């Protein structure tokens, strides 16, 4: 076989192979500087105090066609909690609440994804304060496009509620609400296909 014919044959076979294989999920690395994890908790039933975690990292794989291929992992640095009051932050980091020196991270590990009318529902386990509990999080794809440097990105938002007592944080339940509403919006930088 002459070189040109061999090359053409190789090209054709690659195209046929690519067409027959399902598309691989998009692999993304979470951009911490464009990711926000905000939480709100009731104070004496009078108001809500809001805070955020300043350091978040993680990875996810997203497949529009096959939710079974989706995979999400998010790791939050519990020590980066910030409620705009250093004494309160210190208390939140102490053994009374997050105990960040013993349990330095809050982790979400996805176990499955389902498609719904409004978006997708993410099932997974949240590990916080040394306890792991299953959660279901409705996830909405906000958009997809190039970032400031031209790198392709995609972003999501989700809102859900956790009960801190489920994670062994029962200190001051009553004065400080048990239900903690969490809003997380994250942006992932799409990794080039291998």
């Amino acid at each position: 076989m002459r070189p040109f014919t061999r090359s053409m044959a190789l090209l054709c076979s690659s195209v046929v192979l690519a067409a027959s294989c399902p598309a691989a999920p998009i692999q993304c690395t979470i951009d911490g500087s464009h990711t926000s994890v905000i939480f709100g908790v009731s104070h004496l039933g009078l108001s809500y105090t809001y805070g955020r975690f300043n350091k978040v990292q993680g990875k996810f794989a997203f497949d529009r066609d096959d939710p079974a291929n989706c995979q999400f992992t998010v790791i939050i640095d519990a020590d980066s909690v910030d409620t705009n009051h250093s004494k309160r932050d210190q208390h939140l980091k102490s053994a009374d609440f997050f105990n960040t020196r013993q349990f330095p991270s809050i982790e979400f590990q996805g176990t499955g994804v389902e498609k719904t009318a409004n978006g997708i529902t993410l099932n997974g386990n949240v590990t916080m304060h040394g306890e792991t509990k299953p959660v279901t999080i409705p996830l909405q794809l906000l958009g997809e496009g190039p970032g400031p440097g031209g790198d392709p990105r995609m972003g999501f938002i989700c809102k859900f509620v956790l009960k801190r007592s489920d994670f062994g944080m029962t200190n001051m339940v009553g004065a400080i609400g048990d239900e903690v509403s969490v809003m997380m919006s994250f942006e992932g930088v799409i990794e080039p296909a291998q």
Partner: protein
Amino acid sequence: MIDIGELAIVVLLPAATAAGVAWWLRRFRPSFAAELAICWGWVAGNLGLVWHTESAAQVRLGTDWLPALGRGLRELSNSVTTPSEARGWLPLAVALGTLLSCLPASTLGKQRALELAWLGLCVALPWRLLYGSVYLTRDWTHFEASLWLAGLGLVLWLSMWLLPKFARQVPRWTGVCVMTLLFVSLAMTLLMSGSKVYGILGIGLAAGVFPAAAVLMSHTSPDDHPQTLRTLLLLFSGLIMLGYFFAELTAVNALLLYVSFLLSAVTWPDATKTSTYRWGYLRLWVASGLAILALGCAAITLVRTMAEEADNPYTISAARMNLASSGIGSITCGWNEAIGQAARRDRRQRAHGLPGIVDQQGRRGHQCHGYEDHRGHEQVAGSGRGAKGG
């Protein structure tokens, strides 16, 4: 904020248990009666607190009393069998310590075997308390970790050699009063050092001293066997380690409290009878002074931090709130006024060639995007533009 139920449990349960154990041991007059009574009182208070906290939380969340108490019992059983937090291991260490205190040397064959068992417990305590924490997993190298753990264990074991007996040179009630003062100081210092839970554990320790001493002293004479204090030292050191490594207890305050404990308990065997009496009082005075000094340092730090927080322009102070409610201004006005003042001050300083507020006090960096705040975090909220420039 300690609720009344927690306070009742953490004071009454240790006091009643300590008195009960002391009453049970009064006829045998063993050398470990005092520390056994106080330590078991503390363990009972600690377990009662776990049960109460979980049950009360469940009741507040709308669960009926009986299921809530059941849930509390389950949590209590979990905390004993599989402690998840460092503080959960302290009652187990204390129980083991009291067991070693109770064992006569002949049980383990030789006195040396008993000492080795104590050494093992002294090294195991800091290791178990720090196991899985950021110190052993991230912050320290293997060498640093080994150094810390061996050092802490060794200091604890050597300290045990210093206090084989209760001091006899001073009236016994004076010693009890100083020890109570010391434990109360520990509790209050821990409370002011960022952890309510550890402070409550300290209160539980202080609560058992007087009842145990009252029962024991009414049934013993000064000629009885001197009392051992090793488990009490183990418990005291464990609380200091928890406060230092998992709360904000400073190294200075930790050292002051530790030395204070040693001074209040150690004997001075070489002194003559007259000077012994005088020295006995002197060291108790010094021990009390050091404990109060630690308490004062913690209080000053707390007040200073709170004052700095009040200076935060985003915090609406009580005075400003009063102004707002009295009709002079509104909360919004107070908020805007504070921000306006900060901005005016900033402009004035810049006009005089001085660095602005943000440059001078990193804490105010909240006003600017892309600056680092006082804790070194990158400010990314607000406009949504991060440090990378969005």
